[in-house]
């Protein structure tokens, strides 16, 4: 989540600080220029690199991806460029595959459980850090470290910590009289293992966003509440939770969209195995295309497009919610 989470912050702060009617002065509002004036062409000129970039490096790869999914691309056809058109056959194959049910269920578990824990722990920490105690700034900054590390670094560290024979986790469990757990190599625990690592990775993102959300709740509210004799618990449920609702919703939705895309962590720790036991849709797509000796791009592209559709549905939900708040 290193990459994904940061751009989310930019977006969230952009959304929160964006054009709300009250904030900027009237001189900052848009003034429509009549079309065809030199001004318009200048604007297009400055945006031209981006427009060209989006067309060549976003639209074209996506188009190629759709094309891959509706053709039967064997390795040979891939190099020669003469695949057979197969329509939605590849999609049907994906849906009928034995791995599909497992991958769908794993994806649901992976995203929902990861996000639930990331959010709960992130919120608890944000509330904890809201009180300005000694060193709180430094400690809060240190919490960001997992977020900054390259994913391969965190994932391989976790893989070694969860190693069956030499891992520190099993060593602690055995010291307390427990039995050795084959975290990454047993089908029963592989998914749990990658979820644990992913929760750890996502806590900083949740902490940062929820903390900045808490900063926007006026402290007078808490002061008034404690004057009225409200307990800390009452303050949390009656003030923090309701006033944090918009920020929470955005955090959860972005978390969902970004967890859906996760490949690296799972791939590095378990490669989706053993068998299909920790296979998610994104990892499945990666495995079909690049993970085995024999690349199978057409089904991989079909799975990828399915992922885009799921992400977009929730993305639109996010945009609608954001728009709703900007209006209110």
């Amino acid at each position: 989540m290193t990459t994904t989470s940061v751009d989310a912050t930019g977006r969230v702060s952009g959304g929160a600080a964006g054009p709300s009617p009250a904030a900027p002065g009237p001189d900052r509002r848009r003034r429509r220029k009549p079309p065809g004036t030199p001004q318009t062409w200048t604007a297009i000129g400055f945006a031209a690199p981006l427009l060209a970039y989006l067309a060549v490096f976003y639209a074209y790869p996506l188009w190629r991806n759709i094309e891959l999914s509706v053709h039967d691309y064997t390795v040979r056809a891939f190099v020669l460029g003469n695949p057979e058109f197969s329509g939605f056959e590849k999609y049907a194959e994906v849906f009928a595959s034995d791995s599909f049910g497992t991958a769908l269920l794993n994806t649901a578990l992976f995203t929902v459980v990861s996000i639930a824990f990331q959010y709960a722990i992130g919120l608890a920490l944000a509330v904890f850090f809201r009180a300005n105690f000694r060193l709180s700034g430094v400690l809060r900054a240190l919490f960001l470290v997992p977020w900054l590390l390259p994913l391969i670094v965190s994932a391989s560290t976790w893989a070694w910590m969860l190693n069956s024979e030499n891992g520190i986790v099993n060593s602690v469990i055995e010291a307390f009289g427990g039995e050795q757990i084959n975290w990454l190599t047993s089908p029963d625990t592989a998914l749990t293992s990658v979820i644990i690592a992913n929760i750890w990775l996502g806590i900083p993102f949740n902490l940062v966003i929820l903390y900045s959300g808490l900063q926007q709740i006026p402290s007078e509210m808490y002061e008034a509440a404690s004057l009225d004799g409200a307990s800390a618990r009452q303050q949390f449920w009656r003030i923090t939770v309701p006033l944090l609702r918009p920020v929470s919703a955005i955090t959860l939705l972005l978390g969902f969209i970004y967890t859906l895309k996760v490949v690296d962590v799972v791939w590095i720790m378990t490669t989706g195995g053993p068998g299909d036991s920790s296979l998610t849709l994104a990892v499945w797509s990666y495995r079909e295309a690049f993970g085995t000796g024999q690349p199978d791009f057409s089904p991989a592209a079909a799975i990828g497009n399915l992922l885009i559709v799921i992400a977009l549905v929730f993305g639109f939900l996010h945009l609608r919610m954001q728009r709703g708040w900007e209006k209110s």
Partner: protein
Amino acid sequence: MRTRSWPKTVLGVVFCAFMLFPVYWMVNVSLTQTGDLRRSTPQWFPTDPTLEGYRAAISQQLPSLGTSLVVGLGCVALTVVIAAPAGYALAILHLRGGKALNFLLLVAQMIPAVVMAMGFYAIYVRLGLLNSVPGLIVADSTIAVPFGVLLYTTFMAGIPRELIHASRIDGAGPWRTFTKVVLPISRNSTLTVSLFAFLWAWSDFIFASTLARSGEFVPITLGIYQYIGNNTTQWNAIMATAVVASLPAAILLVVAQRYVAAGVTAGAVKD
């Protein structure tokens, strides 16, 4: 709400220690003797530290560190060159259809990297761009460009109109206004965008493992990955490489943190 109590600090330190334990463990293992790695009870502290892991890491991974540096810097340059003028067009020149473009950029950020990787692979196979540094720079930049444009747009929209008008009255054209007024004011945004563009390119695994997996130039993330595949006994060397790969992120953030913090809030007038 200022509590000056130590118990909370102690609790905070405990939470932090718990959270950062994997990072500590990475450093600890990187300093462990090879012979001690396979002991049934791992050593909690590097009582007998060795640098053999680091020696192995440096001797084998130096070229890939160089590759990652070049890819990261290239990605920064490409991202800023595209995002800064686009932000100017959207925020100050009021590009027509700007709302739709903003929307497209949001959608772009939702596309899974694995999908982009397949698309790029299909294109690069034909163009012979697989395993090339420019090819990887372009692919990695797709992570940062939408973010960069949105960040520049948000910041530039807050630049006081008076500055732009003053520049126009002085006879500066849009290009001069952009380079002499808007860009210098947006310095902090440029730093933020550059910082993240570099970090994302440096940390990228998916594009590296699909578009540059068998070339001469392998970025550091892939170096670690191949390391894991090749010699699973030398975890001290793997963890040492991991520590080295984490350094730029740590350094950049410590050094540039104040710019990031100052970035969005500091206005031109105060400068």
